[in-house]
């Protein structure tokens, strides 16, 4: 009998057949039980007769003569009975002794009955199980197979995001920024960008530098200083953002992304330290450069903290959400070419946190 838990699922036909066979066993068990019950009843009747027989010395009876005739006669020696012991063995004994023998036989019968009932119960429970299985298979159309896919998307997604950023981060632009950072952001070389863009880039560089410096602070303790600095620079960043938005229309998506990231980075600059560090690392990943900040800290727990500890600017929350949506869309546009569904972010538990808190 196949166990339903095995890899190969039972087909409906097999289950049906199993049910049939089990049903047959149960019916045969029931028949045997009936037979043995009959035997027991007979023995009890016999015992009754044996009990009453020695009461009288002789009985007047109608003796059967063949199948159709009877003859009056007498039953004598009522205490003497010849008992069939089995296997062509007989024994002459008194009624009481015969009673003893009958009692002994009844024991055997009862034992057989018990065994049969046990077997029947067993099979009845099996049948129940098979029936349930059948019902399930009928309802579901197939054996229900509960599978859970081990979701390590959290770390994976993070990692993927990281890696995705790197290739997506417009190499040219990254090079540009590399150059910038290596030269402490003083370089104003822009490869093929308009003048206004150049200005904006310079601005961004400065901001980034500031971020990095503050990022170093971040790496050590969470500081209020950073926040303070954030607030001071926030306005400028916002300005940048608006300017950059205008610029975006001109640039291709790649650069746009980067710029957006820059912007978001700067925006987050005003947010929490941890969060900023997170996005900072994102940005770093985008650029694929070893900046001043040596290490990149990624943790799921960081995000919800960032989200919860509202610095009074709901923009942090919303912005992070939008940023990630934008990232995803960019990724999809670059990669798959199909849009992300309404809930693009739920790949990690942190995403759930974010979403829910946003809704709140």
């Amino acid at each position, binding site marked *: 009998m196949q166990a339903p838990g095995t890899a190969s699922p039972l087909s409906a036909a097999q289950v049906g057949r199993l049910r049939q066979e089990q049903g047959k066993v149960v019916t045969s068990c029931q028949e045997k039980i009936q037979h043995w019950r009959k035997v027991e009843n007979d023995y009890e009747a016999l015992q009754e007769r044996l009990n009453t027989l020695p009461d009288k010395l002789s009985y007047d009876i109608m003796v059967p003569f063949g199948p159709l005739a009877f003859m009056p006669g007498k039953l004598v020696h009522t205490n003497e009975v*010849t*008992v069939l*012991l*089995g*296997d*062509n*063995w007989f*024994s*002459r004994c008194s009624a009481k*002794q015969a009673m003893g023998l009958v009692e002994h036989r009844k024991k055997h019968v009862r034992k057989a009955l018990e065994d049969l009932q046990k077997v029947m119960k067993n099979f009845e429970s099996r049948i129940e199980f098979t029936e349930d299985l059948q019902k399930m298979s009928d309802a579901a159309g197939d054996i229900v197979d509960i599978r859970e896919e081990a979701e390590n998307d959290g770390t994976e997604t993070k990692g993927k995001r990281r890696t995705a950023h790197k290739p997506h981060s417009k190499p040219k632009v990254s090079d540009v920024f590399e150059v910038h950072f290596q030269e402490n952001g003083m370089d104003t070389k822009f490869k093929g960008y308009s003048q206004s863009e150049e200005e904006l880039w310079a601005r961004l560089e400065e901001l980034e530098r500031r971020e990095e410096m503050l990022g170093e602070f971040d790496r050590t303790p969470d500081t209020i200083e950073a926040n303070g600095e954030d607030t001071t620079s926030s306005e400028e960043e916002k300005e940048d953002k608006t300017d950059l938005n205008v610029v975006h229309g001109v640039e291709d998506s790649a650069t746009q992304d980067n710029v957006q990231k820059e912007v978001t980075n700067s925006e987050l600059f005003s947010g929490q330290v941890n969060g900023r560090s997170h996005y900072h690392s994102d940005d770093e990943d985008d650029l694929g450069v070893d900046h001043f900040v040596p290490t990149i800290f990624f943790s799921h727990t960081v995000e919800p903290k960032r989200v919860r500890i509202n610095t009074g600017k709901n923009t942090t929350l919303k912005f992070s959400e939008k940023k990630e949506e934008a990232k995803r869309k960019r990724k999809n546009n670059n990669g798959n070419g199909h849009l992300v569904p309404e809930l693009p972010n739920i790949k990690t538990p942190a995403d759930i946190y974010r979403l829910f808190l946003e809704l709140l």
Partner: protein
Amino acid sequence: MADLIQKKLQGELEKYQQLQKDLSKSMAARQKLEAQLTENNIVKEELGLLDATNTVYKLIGPVLVKQDMDEAKATVSKRLDYIAGEIRRYELQMQESEKKAEQQREVLARLQQEYQRAQGKGVAKA
């Protein structure tokens, strides 16, 4: 070529069927012996319940022959042993038959494969 194999296949199949019959015969005999075993056990017990005052008869054909109590007990015991021995013999027989049947099954499978291959070739040729 295919015909040859087919004939061989049929021969092996018959042998296998014979083995199966032997197996089922042994099985039936064993079951009968089992029933006799239980019966004789009951007789032994019941003889134990009786004492020497009762007479014991043995049915031989239409005749009830008087037997000695002890003699009866001894006979029943001997019969029990005999039955147990017979059961063991049949068990061994069944195992052997089972093994032979297995071998035969393998042979049949092989032949079937050959036959199918030959048939395939024949179809290709034709």
